[in-house]
């Protein structure tokens, strides 16, 4: 009986001590970056952040969320800065007084991907709106993110330009709103032989392409710009504004820009530094 009790006590003390270590506060020099799944899942941040941390000693904790969720996280004071890609939502964020100092740090483009059999015959065109119109009229399966992310916002802008309300035009039959991240959408499209819209970064680093291929690219409306935005001290406590600012400045510096441009997957550049951005 005694031995049993002792084991009991020792086991708990050990476990609790470890729990205490695990529950420690973050390192003093760390900031939380609320960002999009595309920059995190593509591996870009994992590629460039070590250089910044080496140079400044600041650790950047990345939350990979959709643009809508990232902005919401920042609005609730739970992040120190945001790196997102939805110009309209960003403008609202700034107009509402939550964000300041928006700067474009990189860009690439969106693409329409789909099955090689291409039932809507959109392959090779450079008109994203016409492609979506063709998909809707043939009622070919289409996967929508449906998560208020930057990609989701772009998709809905294109539907508006096409003058089609995809939900009304067929609901769940061919238009499938999955409410998930880019990777989940690509996995779903691959499994259902469906079309979807992806950012190029996630697409290039995605490992489960199956029968999917890039069908439409090169439409100027498919430009995808990534902006860094600081929190407005007039509305938020911003205890780490100086560190956040330092990170934003580093992203815009020649070193940061070079690091972004140097990131490649299978020899292909995923993000272009903002200096070369189309205006």
């Amino acid at each position: 009986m005694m031995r049993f009790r002792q084991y009991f006590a020792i086991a708990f003390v050990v476990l609790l001590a470890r729990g205490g270590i695990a529950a420690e506060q973050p390192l003093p020099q760390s900031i939380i970056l609320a960002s999009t799944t595309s920059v995190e899942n593509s591996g870009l941040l994992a590629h460039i952040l070590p250089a910044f941390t080496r140079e400044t000693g600041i650790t950047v904790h990345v939350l990979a969320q959709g643009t809508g969720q990232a902005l919401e996280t920042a609005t609730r004071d739970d992040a120190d800065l945001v790196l997102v890609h939805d110009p309209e939502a960003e403008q609202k964020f700034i107009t509402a007084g939550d964000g300041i100092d928006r700067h474009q740090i990189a860009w690439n483009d969106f693409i329409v991907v789909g099955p090689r059999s291409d039932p809507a015959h959109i392959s090779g065109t450079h008109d994203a709106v016409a492609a979506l119109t063709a998909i809707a009229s043939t009622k070919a399966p289409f996967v929508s993110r449906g998560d208020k992310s930057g990609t989701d916002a772009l998709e809905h802008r294109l539907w508006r330009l096409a003058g089609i309300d995809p939900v009304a035009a067929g609901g769940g039959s061919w238009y499938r709103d999955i409410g998930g991240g880019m990777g989940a959408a690509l996995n779903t499209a691959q499994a259902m032989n469906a079309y979807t819209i992806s950012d190029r970064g996630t697409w290039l680093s995605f490992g489960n392409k199956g029968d999917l291929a890039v069908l439409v690219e090169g439409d100027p409306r498919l430009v995808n710009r990534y902006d860094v935005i600081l929190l407005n001290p007039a509305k938020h406590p911003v205890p780490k504004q100086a560190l956040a600012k330092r990170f934003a400045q580093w992203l815009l510096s020649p070193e940061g820009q070079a690091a972004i441009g140097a990131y490649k997957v299978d020899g292909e550049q995923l993000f272009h530094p903002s200096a070369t951005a189309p205006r």
Partner: protein
Amino acid sequence: MVSLSATAIAAVVGLPCGAGLAICRFPGRRALILLANACLGLPPVVVGLGLYLILSRSGPLGGLALLFTPGAMVIAQALLATPIVTALTHRAVEEPWQDYGGALRVDGASRLRSIGMLLAIARRSVVTAVLAGFGRTISEVGAVLIVGGNIAGYTRIMTTAIVLKTSEGDLGLALGLGCILIGISVAVSACAFVLWERR
């Protein structure tokens, strides 16, 4: 590590609570038992969301700066595992209390001492209770994803890494991690089982 800490907390809270509920008579006891049993099916994402709102810097406990830290994850998992440990311990101790309760009282054992003795008598079921709590914490992903944020090298744990790798289309690695996770879970349970079954 997060799961072990959370399980330890759940055990520290849940074991005495469960045993106490079995042997003490006080107003509201039945309500507490009902609560513990009702919370067996507590949805992790809802716990995560609630905790997120509480720990958010603009929430009531925002000053603790716990959101997106391993600490928040431990709290979330402990909240999920404690009802399981409590309810199962209550069930396990109820019967020995009916059998030995009279004897313990005759011996003049205090309530606290009785709890210790009963937990020892019912130890096999108690181990199962703790392992059930551990099973909940190690397999859980919804709550820790929300309050932990899945930050690489900081709050990324096995389950959230599997979600991430799946979304990156890296299904092989996701499956590999899944196998490791199952291995860990089975190993811990087997160790506990062997260790306690021998006695």
